[in-house]
C-alpha cells in the first residue's frame, strides 16, 4: 500500500510540474502582426553555362531590388522572371526572349480568362514555359 501511495504521489507531482497556472494562462503575450512572406525566391545560381549564370545574377538582382520589395504580384505560375529563365534554358536566348515578350503582353491583359489557363491551388494561373516552345508534343494541360 505504501509503495502504491508513493507511486501515485510521484505521478501527481510530475503532472503538477507540467500544469498550466492561471498566471501563465492569462498573462499578456507579445504578438507580431507582421505578415509572413508567402513566397520565397530561389536565389541559386544556374551554373550550366556562362550565359545562364549571367542571367541568374540579373534575375537575383531583380528579385533583391524589386520583386522582394514589391511582393508576390505575378498572376502566373511560374512568375514572369522565372518563365523568362526557363524559356531561355529550354530554347535559346532569341526564342526565349520572344516567349517572354509574349508572356509579358499576356500579363498586361487585365481580363485573363480562366478557360485559357487552369487555376492552381495558389490561385495563380498555370502557364508553363514548355507550352510555348512551338513543339506540340511538349504542350501539357
Amino acid at each position, binding site marked *: 500500500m505504501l509503495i502504491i501511495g508513493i507511486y501515485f504521489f510521484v505521478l501527481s507531482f510530475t503532472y503538477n510540474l507540467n500544469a498550466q497556472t492561471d498566471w501563465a494562462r492569462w498573462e499578456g503575450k507579445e504578438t507580431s502582426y507582421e505578415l509572413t512572406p508567402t513566397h520565397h525566391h530561389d536565389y541559386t545560381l544556374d551554373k550550366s553555362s556562362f550565359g545562364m549564370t549571367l542571367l541568374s545574377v540579373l534575375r537575383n538582382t531583380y528579385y533583391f531590388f524589386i520583386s522582394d520589395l514589391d511582393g508576390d504580384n505575378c498572376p502566373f505560375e511560374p512568375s514572369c522572371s522565372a518563365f523568362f529563365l526557363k524559356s531561355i534554358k529550354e530554347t535559346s536566348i532569341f526564342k526565349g526572349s*520572344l516567349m*517572354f515578350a*509574349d508572356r509579358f*503582353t*499576356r500579363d498586361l*491583359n*487585365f481580363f485573363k480568362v480562366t478557360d485559357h489557363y487552369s487555376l492552381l491551388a495558389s490561385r495563380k494561373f498555370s502557364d508553363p514555359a514548355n*507550352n510555348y516552345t512551338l513543339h*506540340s508534343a511538349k504542350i501539357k*494541360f
Partner: protein
Amino acid sequence: MLRTKITNRLLIVILLIIVPPTTINCQLATDGNILSFQNRLRFGNYLYYEKDYLRAADEFKEYLRSESNDTIVFRLANSYFQIGRYTEAANNFKGLFFGSQLSEEARLMFYESVFFQNDYKLFRVLAEEQNFGSSIYSKDIERLKYISYFLDNSRLPEENLVLKSFPDSVQSRLLNFYQQKKFPKYKSITTSVILSTLIPGAGKIYTGEVGDGITSLIATALTTYLAITNFKADHQFRGWMFSGLAAFFYAGNIYGSAASAQIYNARIQFNFDNEVRLFFEHRNYFLPKIDY
C-alpha cells in the same frame, strides 16, 4: 494458507485440461502441409474472388508449377490483366490458344491485353493475324480495331466500315466523332502569324484569345506612337527606347500568335481524346464480360 494451496491445485488442474489439446492441434498443423499446392490453389481462388489479384497471381503461379489447369491459367492471366500487367496477361492468354476449352475466350482476352498496352499499331497488325483470330468473338475484335483508330493518329478507314461494327444506338455519336477526327476544327498557325504581322493582336483574336489580342494591339500601338512623338520632339533616347519596346511587343505578338494557334489545336485534340476515351470506357469498349 489452505486457500493458497487450493488455488494452486486448481490452477494445475486447469492447465492439465487446457494444454494437451492445444499441443495436439499444433502438432496437426505442422504435420499437414499448409503450403501444399492444393492449399495454395484454395487460397488463390479466395484472393481472386476477393479481387486481390496481385497476391492471387502469386498463388496461382505456385500451383501451376505442379499441376496443369486451363481455368487456373486463365485466372492467372486475368489477374495480371486486372492489375494492368498487360504483357504478362497476353503471354498467359496465348498459352490457351490451342487445345483448350477456353481458347476462344483466351483469344479475345489476348486482344484486349494487347489493346490496353496502348500500342494500337501493333494491335491492328495482330488483329489481321488469321492464326490468332477467334470465331466467336471476331466481331468484338474487329470493333476494338476500329476503336483503336479513334485513339491514335492513324488515318481513319472508310466511314461505313467503321460505323457498321457498332450498334445503332451509338451511330450518330460515332459519326460525330468520326467527323471531328477526320476534319478537326484546327486554327491555321500560318494564318494566325500573317494576321498578327499585318495587325498586331489579330492572330490572337483569330485563335479566340480576344483579350490578349487587344492588349497586344494597344501595347504595340502605344509604344510606337510614343516612339514617333519622341523622335518628332527630338528626344532621341526616349525615341529609341520606345522603338525598342514597340519592336519587343510586335515580335512577341507574332510569336505569341503562332504559339496560341498551336495551343488551341492541342486543346482541341486533348478534349477530343478525352471525350472519345470516356465514351468507350463507359461502354467497356463494347466488350462482353468474361470471367471463369
